[in-house]
């Protein structure tokens, strides 16, 4: 029982993803403004009037509670007095003036509206096309942006402008409206109010001149405002509204009873071909999908035959796919030789439940011999419904547009679209070759005829046909079979030199040759196509792989940009720029690229405004899109998992003759997919680099934090020790001064001595602190990178002298030995170094030696030259280096003994290291080992040797001096 229960739970448990999507949608809706459409059958029914009326009533209602900011974005009164009167009392946003071909055009000012951010804005004529040069080509896109900004919108719409009804309206009225609105916008509207007016009343209003000014009315009524039209349009408007209400009700129901929401949805797939019919097919599929409330896909299968289509035909396909996209479909381009199997494989992978295909034009007879695509589909699709759509001529019957056939549909012809436009791409060359081969064969046959049977000789002709078919395809193949049969008949079959055939058996020869030519050429063409497809696919994946590999190794955003630009320029034959935002989220000009600069920065002329819009809205814009299509550049947002990282700008090559090719390289569906993939790869790479930076910064700050802590503890110890002594000694002195001086001479002397001792201590500790501060300042200076070496040619002797002079005090109790004479030449050469800094090094090393070596011990300063360097060593007789610290000694804040009483934060050696390395030298330390006197195999440490090197260089010459 428990199990049964859990099973049933499982069945109705909402899919978490879907639930999340639903929540997200709702959250989105809350942020967005709401859209109310005043919907009518045609112009003049009073939509604008109703809209203004609604605005007024809202205003008057709101005045009691709280003020609502209502403005009129754009309202076209068409000179109607009633409508104009309604505008009174409403704030009207000034229109923006566009200069287009020396004309001034007024248009809705989107930016002003966004800037003002009212609670409600009235925007008339949702399907209106904007003036060229506006941000969006269509007004509904402006409205989308307003809604996204959280502004409520009232708008108006006529039924004939709905995209999916566009063709039907065209058939009814005879006028095809170019301004269309995607159904999705209508369906997604929060509210649709139908403004209805019976046909007769509308005609009456028209005659009264209430709709148009009088002369216009005459013309309008004749063509468009016929009563029949008006009734039909009204019916459509009513129906469409009813559909909406119906689906609303269904949605409401499904919302209240959770179970039904999760029911499996239908998914539609429509096959698109190159014929003009395809557009209608897509519209039908869109309507079907809408009525089924299902997702839908539009696919185009590129077969070898379709590969040979002209560019214009292929562009038509792209346009059809684009239309499908605007109608809400997901589009894809597939390639393969067998349409049916490719479509079905794709359909199954996407869980498609219904296939929509066009009806065939081919006769039942042809289909019997060569089964078409639909036959293949019906045979193979055991799990998918197939809908066959009728052809244009049946369109008169309005209600019978879709012939829904279930899967046991009668065998039907292949999809008509695939039959048309099958051009042969083979050039004339093939035909010349066919003729030449046939002539050659004829001569050869004439030569060998005496020795072979006529039936065998035919084989030679057949060979020629096969060769031509395989090499040049079907056309030349068939041509070859024709002329082969003809010449065979003419030259070799009796009666010779005539086409009459005495023997009927040669009919068979002809037939076989013909069929062989067809079969071979088809096979070859398929093979070649598959090779081409495979090659292209390989090329694409190679391009992806190459870019991915290069991007993986790049460590900076600049590098990524350089790599991407380089790759994409080649693949898309276009100009590329990658725009990144600055720290204020503002898109900046592309970084100048030294390698490809002439192609990119200079000519591209990127519009930063568009790029910014793309970056902010995460939508593509510019050339070939719905937003600012008049731009010559396509802008693609670089969307990474976390956020948008920048904008990719791509411009087709404008060089003569390359434009069309370049455009195709970008806008062919598979290339577009490739481009999108590239964009996301680049985005991910940029994001990766971004996070690497963050991680690195975190590491650096962690490291510096650690360092800061060790500095603080070291400094606090080293500063506190002398400070404590100073404070305490000063206190002692004061105490002694306050106490009366002893009269006893010995005590008096003792007191004096004590006092002098305290003063010495004060002095000593102050010097210790001074040295520490000097070292800290030096380190800070060296670390800040502001130290510029003041290198001069000088003698080592001199700087050793100054260092010894400076260190006189600490070294007073040590025995100093100086050995600066070069063994071979006597004198050390001049060396180039910064005397002040090398003086610091020597002082630090000497101080170190003085600190660790016991009093009275020897400190040796020696130097010798090697091939490239001068090596300077300072050795002492101290305890040597602590075993485990040899390598760390020169790091900051390391000291031989932790918390030792000996002063110095261990900064000294790291300062030395920094200085020596700045001079291009090295510094190191080792223990001085002495062999044991008793046991020669054993050594013991007898001190430390610090050695640094300075590069020798070539000292400048000195002019010879005239001896006095």
């Amino acid at each position, binding site marked *: 029982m428990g199990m049964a229960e859990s099973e049933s739970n499982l069945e109705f448990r909402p899919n978490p993803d879907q639930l999340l999507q639903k929540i997200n949608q709702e959250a989105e809706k809350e942020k967005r403004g709401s859209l109310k459409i005043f919907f009518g059958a045609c112009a003049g029914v009073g939509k604008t009037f109703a809209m203004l009326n609604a605005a007024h009533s809202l205003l008057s209602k709101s005045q009691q509670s709280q003020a609502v900011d209502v403005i009129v974005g754009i309202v076209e009164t068409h000179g109607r007095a009633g409508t104009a009167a309604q505008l009174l009392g409403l704030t009207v946003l000034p229109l923006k003036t566009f200069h287009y071909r020396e004309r001034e055009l007024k248009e809705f000012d989107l930016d002003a509206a966004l800037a003002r951010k009212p609670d409600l804005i009235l925007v008339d004529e949702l399907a209106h096309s904007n003036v060229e040069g506006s941000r969006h080509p269509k007004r509904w896109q402006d409205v989308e942006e307003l809604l996204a900004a959280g502004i409520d919108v009232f708008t108006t719409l006529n039924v004939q402008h709905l995209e999916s009804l566009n063709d039907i309206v065209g058939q009814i009225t005879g006028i095809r409206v170019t301004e269309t609105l995607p159904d999705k916008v209508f369906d997604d509207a929060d509210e649709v109010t139908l403004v209805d007016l019976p046909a007769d009343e509308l005609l009456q209003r028209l005659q009264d001149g209430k709709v148009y000014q009088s002369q216009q009315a005459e013309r309008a009524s004749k063509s468009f405002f016929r009563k029949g039209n008006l009734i039909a349009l009204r019916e459509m408007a009513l129906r469409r509204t009813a559909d909406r209400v119906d689906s609303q009700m269904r949605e409401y129901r499904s919302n209240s009873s959770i179970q039904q929401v999760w029911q499996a949805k239908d998914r539609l797939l429509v096959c698109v071909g190159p014929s003009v019919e395809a557009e209608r097919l897509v519209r039908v599929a869109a309507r079907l999908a809408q009525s089924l409330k299902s997702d839908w896909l539009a696919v185009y299968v590129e077969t070898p035959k379709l590969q040979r289509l002209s560019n214009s035909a292929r562009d038509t396909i792209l346009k059809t796919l684009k239309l499908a996209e605007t109608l809400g479909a997901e589009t894809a381009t597939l390639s393969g030789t067998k349409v049916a199997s490719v479509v079905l494989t794709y359909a199954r992978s996407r869980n498609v439940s219904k296939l929509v295909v066009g009806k065939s034009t081919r006769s039942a007879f042809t289909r019997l011999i060569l089964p078409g695509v639909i036959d293949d589909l019906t045979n193979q699709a055991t799990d998918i419904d197939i809908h066959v759509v009728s052809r244009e001529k049946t369109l008169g019957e309005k209600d019978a547009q879709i012939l829904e056939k279930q899967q046991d549909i009668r065998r039907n012809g292949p999809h008509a679209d695939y039959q048309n436009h099958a051009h042969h791409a083979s050039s004339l060359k093939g035909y010349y070759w066919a003729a030449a081969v046939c002539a050659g064969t004829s001569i050869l046959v004439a030569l060998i005829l005496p020795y072979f049977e006529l039936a065998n000789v035919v084989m030679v002709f057949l060979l020629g046909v096969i060769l031509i078919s395989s090499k040049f395809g079907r056309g030349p193949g068939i041509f070859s079979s024709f002329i082969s049969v003809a010449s065979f008949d003419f030259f070799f079959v009796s009666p010779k030199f005539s086409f009459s055939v005495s023997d009927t058996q040669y009919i068979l020869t002809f037939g076989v040759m013909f069929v062989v030519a067809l079969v071979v050429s088809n096979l070859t063409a398929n093979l070649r196509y598959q090779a081409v497809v495979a090659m292209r696919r390989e090329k694409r994946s190679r391009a992806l792989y190459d870019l991915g590999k290069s991007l993986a190794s790049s460590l900076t955003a600049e590098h990524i940009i350089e790599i991407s630009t380089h790759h994409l320029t080649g693949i898309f034959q276009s100009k590329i720029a990658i725009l990144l935002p600055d720290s204020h989220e503002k898109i900046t000009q592309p970084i100048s690229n030294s390698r490809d600069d002439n192609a990119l920065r200079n000519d591209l002329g990127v519009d930063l405004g568009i790029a910014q819009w793309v970056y902010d809205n995460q939508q593509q814009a510019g050339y070939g899109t719905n937003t600012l299509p008049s731009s010559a550049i396509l802008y693609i947002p670089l969307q990474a998992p976390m956020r948008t990282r920048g904008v990719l700008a791509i411009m087709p090559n404008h060089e003569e003759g390359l434009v069309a090719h370049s455009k195709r390289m970008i806008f062919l569906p598979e290339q577009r997919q490739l481009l999108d993939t590239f964009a996301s790869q680049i985005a991910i790479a940029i994001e990766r680099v971004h996070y690497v930076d963050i991680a690195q910064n975190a590491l650096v700050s962690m490291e510096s934090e650690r360092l800061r802590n060790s500095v603080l503890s070291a400094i606090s110890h080293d500063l506190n020790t002398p400070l404590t002594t100073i404070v305490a000694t000063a206190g002692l002195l004061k105490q002694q001064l306050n106490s009366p001086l002893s009269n006893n001479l010995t005590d008096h002397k003792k007191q004096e001595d004590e006092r002098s001792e305290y003063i010495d201590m004060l*002095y000593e500790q102050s010097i210790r602190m*001074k040295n520490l501060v*000097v070292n800290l*300042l*030096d380190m800070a*200076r060296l670390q800040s990178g502001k130290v510029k070496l*003041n290198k*001069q*040619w*000088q*003698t080592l*002797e*001199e*700087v*050793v*002298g*100054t260092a*010894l*002079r400076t260190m006189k005090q600490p070294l007073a109790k040590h025995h*100093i030995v*100086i050995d*600066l004479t070069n063994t071979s030449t006597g004198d050390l050469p*001049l060396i180039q170094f910064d*005397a*002040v800094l090398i*003086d610091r090094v020597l002082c630090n090393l000497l101080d170190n030696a003085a600190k660790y070596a016991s009093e009275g011990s020897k400190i040796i300063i020696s130097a010798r030259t090697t091939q490239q360097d001068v090596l300077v060593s300072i050795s002492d007789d101290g305890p040597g280096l602590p075993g485990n610290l040899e390598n760390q000694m020169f790091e900051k804040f390391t000291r031989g003994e932790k918390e030792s009483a000996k002063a110095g934060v261990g900064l000294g050696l790291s300062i030395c290291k920094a200085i020596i390395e700045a001079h291009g030298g090295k510094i190191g330390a080792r223990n001085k080992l002495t062999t044991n006197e008793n046991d020669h195999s054993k050594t013991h440490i007898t001190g430390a040797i610090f050695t640094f090197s300075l590069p020798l260089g070539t*000292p*400048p010459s*000195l002019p010879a*001096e*005239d*001896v*006095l």
Partner: protein
Amino acid sequence: MANYLANIVLIEDEQQIRRFVTAALEIENFQVFSAETGKQGLIEIGTRKPDAVILDLGLPDIDGLEVIRDVRTWSNIPIIVLSARTQETEKVAALDAGADDFLSKPFGTPELLARVRAQLRRRSMLSEASNEGVYAFGDISIDLSKRLVSKAGLAVHLTPIEFRLFTELVKNAGRVVTQRQLLKEVWGPAYVDNEHYLRIYMSHLRQKLENDPAQPEHLITEIGVGFRFI
């Protein structure tokens, strides 16, 4: 009042430093006139006619260099400059402007007193010796008119340039002379950037005149600034 060894003007804006310098000098029986600003200092120098000036380079009103230049237009009184340790270029600029010696902060009072005494001594010594042109430093003696240099009674042979360089140092004994000044005086204005000349000839001089050239007692290098002969 007549018992004062000398009058000294101290120009220093830091009150603490002014106080301990004054105290140290007064213990040694110098009379000190202190000034907080450069302008005030110039007035003090003009009115008090001191025997030496101690000048801090970082003053609130005018640059210490300007004070030096101003004083040098009318007086040769010794000027000792106080400056931060790392500012070698500042020291060189002050010395080139006419200062006689410098002290790096932080400094001890014994060091300061030694410098002041050295400057005062230098004045009297030069005025005494100028008549005969004969000087003695430890076991080194020099007779400028006879162009003779001897060490511990033995004549030392110097090349012409070595002699010119040594003369220049002797004339400025007790002062810090910058590399630039020496190069200009000995080799000529075109050679002011050939520091290595100076290095080599100084090294020669040390080898000829010093007991231990690596630890010189008379030909002292002031690192990054210049030389001092004492």
